[in-house]
């Protein structure tokens, strides 16, 4: 089947491309359309635009910027998707895969309707995790207004497995922005969601950690955020290092 993927994540806050550190501290990182075109030229496997503004709807400014970039790489969009009309707006901008955050927990029936429209292969569920003493891995709340107790992973594992989405974006929400700090696979709980769907790992990865993750059967991809907005071609150097380390086993050769 297909090679595993290196995915570039462009993080957007209030319409602005940023570098993010634990979702709490952010620094401007240039223009989104420029970053999209550069990553398209460098031929990454997929590009994810992740809006962390915690909006109740998708940001029309971000949608317009994606449309204007007009890239020929697969684009995943995440952030603020609430219903089918959002999906149709994003399709018209050139996105074909969609990251669903709280929607799959709040309204599984809406996810089913979206899946009937675009297919399960177009849907990815966001699973941002933190570890809590005595509870193991729990879902990190995506809303600053959400004061309810965080959901343990073992309580949502069935919901995740039953969803029509094809893949999961599993995020180490504490390590995000801190390269080398990823540690989710050291928790036994993680096995609750491995196997039901393909997993894309994100949050605090570096080359060494990514090499190890690529060997896991459940892994279909690894995602990098801030490094995409660092020095030019930094993400390509990371990719080249990983490919050499795994002897080109899991990744396609780039044709640049």
């Amino acid at each position, binding site marked *: 089947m*297909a090679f*595993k993927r290196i995915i570039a994540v462009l993080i957007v806050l209030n319409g602005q491309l940023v570098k993010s550190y634990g979702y709490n501290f952010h620094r401007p990182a240039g223009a989104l359309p420029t970053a999209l075109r550069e990553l398209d030229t460098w031929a990454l*496997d997929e590009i994810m635009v992740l809006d962390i503004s915690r909006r109740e709807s998708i940001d029309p400014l971000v949608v317009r910027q994606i449309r204007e970039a007009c890239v020929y790489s697969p684009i995943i969009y995440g952030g603020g998707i609430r219903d089918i009309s959002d999906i149709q707006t994003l399709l018209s901008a050139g996105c074909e895969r969609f990251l669903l955050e709280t929607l799959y927990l709040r309204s599984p029936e809406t996810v089913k309707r979206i899946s009937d429209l675009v297919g399960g292969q177009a849907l990815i569920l966001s699973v941002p995790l933190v570890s809590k003493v005595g509870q193991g891995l729990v879902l990190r709340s995506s809303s600053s207004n959400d004061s309810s107790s965080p959901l343990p992973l073992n309580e949502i594992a069935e919901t995740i497995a039953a969803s029509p989405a094809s893949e999961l974006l599993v995020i180490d929400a504490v390590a995000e922005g801190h390269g080398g700090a990823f540690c989710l696979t050291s928790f036994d709980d993680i096995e609750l969601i491995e196997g039901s769907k393909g997993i894309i790992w994100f949050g605090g990865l570096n080359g060494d950690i990514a090499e190890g993750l690529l060997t896991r059967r459940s892994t279909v991809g690894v995602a990098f955020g801030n490094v995409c907005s660092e020095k030019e071609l930094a993400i390509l150097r990371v990719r080249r290092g990983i490919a050499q380390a795994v002897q080109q086993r899991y990744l396609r050769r780039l044709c640049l």
Partner: protein
Amino acid sequence: MTRVGILNLGGGNIASLVNVFDSLGTGVIVCEKENKFLPSELDLIVIPGVGSAGSAMSCIHNSYFNDFLTHFNESKKPVLGICLGAQLFFSHLDESDCLGLGWIEGSVSAIKNFPFYNTGWSYLDYSQLRAANLHRSLSRSPAVYFNHKYLLPSFNVGASSQTDQVGSIPAIAVRENIVGFQFHPEKSQAQGRIILRNLLRDYFGL
């Protein structure tokens, strides 16, 4: 100028297809269910694909698309199907347990012995591309992007990767004026655009 019509079945990424055909210098028209087009107005029809087989066939049957496609095929005019669009060419679609267009015999079934969707990049077989006259200017291992769970039952060009657990997978099915791509050329970067250009120029002669 070549006139390309893209059928809007409701769930596909039409924008990317419009962009890529526009970049190849063709005229592009998005055919909506509500606005009827005549076959004589178009040189090539593209059936895009995302969504479920059942809803796509329902959309075709409940609109002028059905007669339109029948006329196009019977007059041997070029038709390109992409992903789900390619699967619709066949006689039966297991995903929704419904009939396809029936232009090519075969049943589109799910990938066996593999728990996930086939999402990502694989290399097309260059020698098979050459046999289909789609190889010009491509690298010797052209990688293209797939995102599907169901397989074309017959094919002319296969694709593979070094991680292969199920062997070569169907990538391109060809029968005279009908060409089906299981992968997404509009999302396969430079190699995808070259394959589309070869299809228009070398295979269809447009």
